């Protein structure tokens, strides 16, 4: 391979590494808070554009003795990671302006994306675990960032303890798989001695549990509401977008390649496990979101519910369902990040924390309120917005597979209908206030340019991805077929 092509294909991670170095140097020399933010945002934007180009043109490059293989799938995930992190960095301006140490946050955000990028490209379970922990560790730091705040520290401790336990579970699972198969590579071909097929199965279940922590599947979700609520908003946005998608990336990476062989050799019906977790997760998430009064907590539970819908993609295990899952993650990350950013803006400007505090905010900040409305409607699954299209396809995929899998579609449709209730409550409060309360006097309208850039980006993407879903799904399909066809 031409060294320049190779360099180009490694450039998304290369840019991030370079940005990391520049950030450190910048902090040593100038200690400019704003500049750190701009450098990281620029690097993430560049990575995002490079990844879009590389994902759509179907490139592959291997790295470090083929431990990491960057292909369309990895680049596709790279787009989601870098785009979500970019949104976080763009919206973090006012938070970092107040923080004592601003530069480390930018550095951690880039480190998390770097780790996630490697997760999506690793071909070896141990390597995957190491980069997975690298990314997770970065998020521990981000959650604890407002270290003088008791809530933030508590959230970080909870997150850390549960995260540490699940790391233990993952490594235990990997070691069982190693004992059973004599290999830790993520490969579609491996052998297993008949006595140890059960070891393989238990190992795989432990992997599902361990990664289930990251994607917050029921019942491994319990850390999530407290952590999301306690963490500073940029960290919450980061957890809900980059970090959650990384958990799915690891599962997609493993089960897309190893899934058929696990079923053939170990006899483990892992698809049923995902189906079960999917229904439990979406139902629990929605029911719990229904009774929340705090906006941040409501969004946290709704993000659990969204994991449930996305798990359908894993449960079906067809190449179409994986492709839809990839599309779903992109639309979810944007809509969710957008909602959290608007919530952050409303909390900092209008001191709005509970859903009741959102009364009449459409009068004070009409554009942000409108964006939040569109993004919540998208999450609720209203056509033609992007998450609707994703849900539509994922339910369609389960109907296509047929049999008992249709239950997943039925559960999903019922849950979507249920979710409209709590999303609509927020929209109602913003536009027509609380019952029996008269509207406040027409005050000055308040929109902050620093927030409006990421919010409007999310708004435009939420609408555009719904209308132009064809190209994205075509790329996702291509990414899935290249990976499942390749034997490592």
């Amino acid at each position, binding site marked *: 391979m031409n060294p320049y092509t190779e360099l180009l294909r490694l450039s998304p991670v290369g840019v991030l590494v370079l940005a990391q170095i520049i950030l450190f140097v910048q902090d040593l020399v100038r200690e400019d808070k704003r500049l750190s933010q701009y450098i990281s945002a620029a690097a993430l934007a560049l990575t995002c554009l490079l990844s879009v180009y590389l994902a759509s043109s179907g490139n592959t490059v291997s790295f470090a003795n083929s431990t990491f293989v960057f292909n369309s799938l990895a680049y596709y995930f790279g787009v989601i990671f870098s785009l979500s992190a970019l949104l976080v960095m763009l919206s973090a301006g006012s938070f970092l302006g107040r923080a004592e140490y601003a530069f480390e946050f930018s550095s951690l955000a880039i480190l998390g994306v770097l780790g996630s990028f490697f997760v999506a490209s690793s071909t070896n379970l141990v390597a995957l675990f190491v980069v997975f922990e690298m990314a997770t560790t970065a998020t521990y730091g981000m959650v604890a960032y407002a270290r003088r705040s008791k809530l933030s520290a508590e959230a970080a401790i909870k997150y850390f303890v549960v995260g540490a336990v699940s790391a233990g579970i993952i490594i235990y699972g990997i070691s069982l798989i190693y004992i059973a198969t004599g290999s830790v590579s993520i490969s579609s071909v491996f052998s297993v001695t008949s006595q140890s097929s059960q070891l393989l199965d238990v190992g795989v*279940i432990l992997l599902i549990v361990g990664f289930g922590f990251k994607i917050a599947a029921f019942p491994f979700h319990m850390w999530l509401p407290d952590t999301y609520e306690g963490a500073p908003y940029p960290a919450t946005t980061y957890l809900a977008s980059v970090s959650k998608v990384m958990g799915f990336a690891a599962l997609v990476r493993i089960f897309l390649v190893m899934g058929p062989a696990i079923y053939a050799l170990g006899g483990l019906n892992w698809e049923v496990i995902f189906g079960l977790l999917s229904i439990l997760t979406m139902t629990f998430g929605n029911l719990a979101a229904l009774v929340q009064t705090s906006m941040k907590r409501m969004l946290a539970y709704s993000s659990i519910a969204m994991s449930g819908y996305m798990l359908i993609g894993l449960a079906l295990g067809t190449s179409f369902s994986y492709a839809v899952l990839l599309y779903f993650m992109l639309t979810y990350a944007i809509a969710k990040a957008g909602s959290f950013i608007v919530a952050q803006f409303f909390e900092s400007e209008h001191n709005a924390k509970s859903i009741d505090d959102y009364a009449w905010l459409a009068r004070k900040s009409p554009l942000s309120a409108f964006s939040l409305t569109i993004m919540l409607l998208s999450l609720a699954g209203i056509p*033609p917005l992007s998450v609707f299209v994703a849900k539509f396809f994922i339910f369609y995929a389960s109907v296509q597979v047929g049999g008992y899998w249709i239950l997943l579609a039925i559960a999903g449709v019922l849950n979507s209908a249920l979710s409209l209730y709590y999303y609509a409550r927020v929209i109602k409060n913003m536009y027509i206030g609380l019952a029996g309360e008269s509207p406040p006097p027409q005050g000055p309208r308040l929109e902050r340019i620093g927030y409006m850039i990421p919010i409007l980006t999310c708004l435009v993407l939420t609408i555009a991805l719904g209308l132009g879903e064809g190209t994205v799904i075509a790329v996702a399909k291509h990414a899935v077929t290249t990976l499942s066809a390749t034997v490592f």
Partner: protein
Amino acid sequence: MASFAELVWLVPVVPLILSPFPIFAGDKLPRKGSFVAIFACAVSTVISAGALLTLPSIPYNVSVQWLLPGTATSIDVGFYLDGLSALMITITSGIATLILVYSLEYMSHEEGLPRYWTEMMIFTGSMLGFALADSVILMYVFWELIGACSYLLIGFWYTKPEAASAAKKAFVLVRVGDVGFLIGMILLYTNGHTLNLPAILSSPATLISSPQMRTIIALLVFAGAIGKSAQLPLFPWLPDAMEGPTTVSALIHSATMVAAGVYLVARLYPFFQVAPYALLVVGAIGALSAFVAATMGLVSFDIKRVLAYSTMSQLGYMMVALGVGAYGAAMFHLMNHAVFKAMLFLSAGAILHATGARDLREMGGLLKKMKVTGLAFLIGGLALSGIPPFNGYFSKDLIIGAAYQYGLVTGDFWIYLLVLISALLTAAYIFRAFFVAFILPPKSGATKEVHEVSLTMTIPMVILIGFTLVTGWLWSPLMDVFQPFVTYAASLGATPQAPSYVGLLTLAFALTGIGLAYLVYIRATVPPERFSSGRVLSKLRNLIMRSYYFDAAYDRVAAGVENGIALALDYFDRFALDGLVNGIGRSLVKLGRDFRSMETGEIRNYVAVMVIGAVLLILLFEVL
């Protein structure tokens, strides 16, 4: 120069695209952004009228693919222009423009005007999109948008509890019908494998071979039309919707929301024709609604409610026309009704604007003070009653004649009888309103000085008076350009014509109705109180006044459902959710250690639940 047909996609798109302007920038624009709304609707009107006049001989279809282009799951989204849709968009955009001009003055003193303009634009744009849609799924999308906008507009004065509850009622009752439409659409797709309108209309019988399935689908779709067009039994939202601004009522009742139900049936008429019994149900519901609404119109004291019941009744006529095979007459009446009903509402709005009264008993002698308004109401009333040469006469005559022919063919004369009696009642209730409000001297001393409204409000009324005189002749003994124009499929057939003595009888009934109102209210030979005295009559009056107890029944059902859901949620919140989390926590406490503080305890629980989950999964999938 592109032809109008090629530009027709702009008709719904312009109002929808421009709709954010008033609400976001209305405060900075002159007159709160009203000109954006009027401009958008005027553009739509010009293009619609141009498309109507230069209609290509073959239907014009433009579409884009959405949801996976080029695969089996792709859904075509586009616009379909033929005689029917061209007529509908011209009516809708034209009347919407006039109503928006009228609102300039009528709404000028209201709070939240930018919101009003934006919602009116989305409302109109959705109706235009609904009329032009080339697939049932796109029709459904716009259908829902129409419903959502009507909710917002009826509840425009959301601080008024009556308005808020009326909006809720409209939304919920219409949604009941929508569920039927949605299920019908899903069945249509699963059985016929297409939602594309031209495909459904070209050969509906071969698309779905089972006649029973066709009937089921047609009736489910018709349930949607019942809700939107306020037919029995989903009508109680319509009179309550009078809590919204009068301009909104005018738009809802003439060319948008309620017309959507009739249009839906007309649009899918070839499908209804091959669905056995479906048209009979349409006709029966229509005839009953026409009659029931006319009786309710007789006893109402609120001028807007009288008009609301008359809308329900006239929509019943259109449904009858569709049911008895007079498809052309239904569309003809839709057009004529849109014109004169908009005029009647604008006239009622002018009264409200000038006097502040909605109750007929507070009005009187207005004709002398408000000449144009009174003339508009009189001509509207004559058209509604079916008196020549106003447009209502021509279409109503055709419908009642067709109902008579239907009776001759099938032997079922009760539909004919119901619409004939309704014709008498219609004339009676509208002239009762006219006499009381405009002719009789006011009962209480009129303390308030009343003047005619300004030109901005009278000009739309005058334009509509002109149309009332003109549109009827489009299908009359002189000429028949209307019917061939809207007949988009060969199967639709010509409207059956009745012998001329049927028409004379209809006219006699209408004149009798006016005469009765004259005798009771002007000559006072029989005082109106006589009609409510006596046991039977007072009971009957009570029954009609309470909308045949439909309202009470719905309230009961709603209260039951609401309480049920609230109880279930409360139970879930208190026991299932809290119980689950705390229960697991407590059972761990029993294992030995007590919480030192809530925080550490919780993490322990979280980890414990996680491990238990893992163990359960392993047990479930490996051991068992």
